């Protein structure tokens, strides 16, 4: 796909139209579509959601830009609706949660490998092992609460075993921070960080929204616990963004990020209907980028090439199982901890995190209790010998 971020015009904003019927199209099949189709749907919902969040923040800070921002957000609101409504209503909130964690694992693993900056890549691998553990804990909950196998959702692409235990993810806020990328970092580096902060944001918001809808008290606790970690991840990834970028620079990166993401989706989509949707939205985003470039030039009097380089699209996310990479990271880095912005051996973890953890886990750990002796098995753990049944027989 030959895209140039400096020159391609896409579809002009005033030609980006929607109807309610089109926005609420046919959902994907939970059973028949490839798991990576759902991964793309979940991620792109997060990307659109964060793009709107960025613009709403900009709207609060800039009077002259408001009309343009409102125009961009109208299109993006409806793009996000098209995407989010692709998830069929037969996904229970817990099944969708499994999908969210698969996104976090597979997308983060791909980005960690694409990232040229060693520190940034380490930051991705660190949070990757935490989301990897969340999948295991939620898989235990899905099995034990709803009697379902998480692998019906993840379709064999993603391992379901413990990672860095969720129990130890809880850190003091000062140890949640990371170093930002340099202002002149490679464009890909900027897009990677923005993509992952977008993904974590929507995951956190999803857990905060659906956690209280569960009746089961342990499910309610598990969502509370993991939502707290996702909140930490938003800070972790959010800190990777450069705080010295101007508002319009952030807008430009945001639009470039959407182009970059839709291009990877369009290239790799196996469902023809969705492939057409990704291609259409890729053209829409090029239209948005064109407007962002214009504003950057007119308002800041700066050349978009300062941010977008030669306009070439950095290599995109690979939508395929990252199993072998994740296993290597797990073997090598599961014992790492945080101290300030540094990744350190377990023995050097920031002491305020230990104190914080002692307090917050004082009444028990939801993630530990839900997954006690949980061993993922195809078809759920009831396929294994059930001790309760054994007792009845005896």
């Amino acid at each position: 796909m030959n895209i140039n971020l400096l020159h391609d015009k896409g579809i002009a904003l005033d030609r980006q139209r929607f109807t309610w019927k089109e926005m609420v199209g046919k959902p994907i099949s939970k059973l028949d579509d490839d798991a990576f189709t759902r991964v793309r749907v979940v991620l792109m919902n997060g990307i659109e959601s964060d793009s709107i969040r960025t613009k709403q923040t900009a709207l609060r800070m800039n009077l002259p830009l408001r009309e343009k921002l409102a125009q961009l957000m109208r299109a993006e609101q409806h793009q996000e609706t098209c995407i989010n409504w692709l998830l069929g209503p037969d996904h229970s909130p817990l099944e969708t949660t499994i999908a969210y964690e698969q996104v976090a694992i597979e997308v983060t693993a791909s980005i960690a490998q694409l990232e040229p900056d060693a520190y940034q890549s380490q930051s991705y691998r660190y949070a990757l092992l935490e989301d990897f553990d969340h999948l295991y804990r939620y898989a235990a909950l899905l099995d034990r609460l709803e009697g379902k196998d998480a692998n019906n959702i993840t379709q064999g692409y993603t391992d379901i075993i413990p990672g860095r235990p969720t129990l130890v993810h809880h850190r003091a806020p000062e140890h949640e921070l990371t170093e930002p990328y340099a202002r002149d970092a490679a464009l890909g580096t900027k897009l990677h960080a923005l993509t992952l902060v977008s993904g974590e944001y929507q995951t956190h918001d999803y857990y905060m929204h659906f956690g209280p809808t569960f009746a089961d008290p342990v499910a309610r606790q598990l969502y509370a616990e993991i939502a707290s970690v996702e909140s930490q991840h938003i800070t972790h990834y959010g800190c990777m963004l450069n705080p010295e970028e101007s508002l319009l620079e952030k807008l430009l990166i945001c639009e470039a990020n959407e182009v970059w993401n839709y291009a990877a989706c369009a290239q790799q989509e196996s469902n023809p209907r969705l492939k057409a949707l990704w291609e259409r939205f890729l053209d829409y985003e090029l239209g948005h980028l064109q407007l962002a470039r214009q504003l950057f030039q007119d308002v800041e009097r700066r050349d978009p090439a300062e941010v977008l380089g030669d306009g070439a699209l950095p290599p995109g996310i690979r939508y395929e199982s990252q199993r072998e990479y994740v296993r290597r990271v797990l073997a090598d880095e599961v014992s790492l901890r945080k101290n300030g912005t540094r990744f350190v051996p377990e023995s050097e973890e920031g002491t305020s995190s230990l104190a914080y953890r002692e307090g917050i886990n004082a009444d028990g750990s939801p993630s530990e209790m839900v997954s006690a002796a949980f061993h993922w098995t195809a078809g759920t753990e009831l396929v294994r010998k059930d001790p309760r049944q054994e007792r009845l027989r005896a």
Partner: protein
Amino acid sequence: MQSTRFGANRTGARMSPLNTSSMAALADEASPETHIGTPVMDAAKVAFATEAEAIGSVPPPLSLKGVAKAGMAALKGGAPSVFVDKLGERLAFERSGTRLYEALIIKHQAAQQSGSEALPPAAEALEALPGVRVLLEMLAEDPLATLMRIRNEELAHFQMLGDCLQRMGGDPTAMTPSADVAGVATGGILQVVTDPRTTLAQALTAMLSAEVTDQAGWELLEILARDVGQPDLATLFHGALEQEQEHVAIIRSWLAYLLSREAGTAAV
């Protein structure tokens, strides 16, 4: 609406044998065979349940004045609050049931427009189902008319219960705890029937759960009415029960008919 058939279902472990055997080997390595037990989680759940507050309360009678004789004050034995709670539950269930039948009528129309014969007259389906005892005279009416009639009977049950509650000094617009819980339980049925992708047979399967529950609900309410010394109400409720028994028989027989006679059509 499309028929249910073999296709590219990707959910099973056998769809990706190499991947899943690799996953299983890793899971074996990461978590050695151990006794499956969740005593800490179980204890936590027991503690939550022990400490939990009620879903809510039953609304007290609006006024005891003027309704004392016919109203809750006349209830004997048992706890009047339980009777009112269950009346509220049936009322809410019948009201939701009316909406469920409206959704089922749409599903029936969609099946017809997708090229299926959809449902036969109830009489034909009842004849075809071995073991079903026909409770009423054969229903030769058009299936849509049957669906509308059942829908209207659910509505009439809702209205009848509203009148009962009103006469007893209760508030038929209030949501009682059991009404709330019944709404949660019915939520999944509503999701199935209103999903445009589900077939008529899948919707009928969900409706069968609703109707069997409804039938048992009326049986219970009739007993409760006698327990609290309200034989007139018990007679009324028995009339509703007979209609619900007919609903169960019709839904069961339609479902059996579709699965055995209409396989491969959009309705199944």
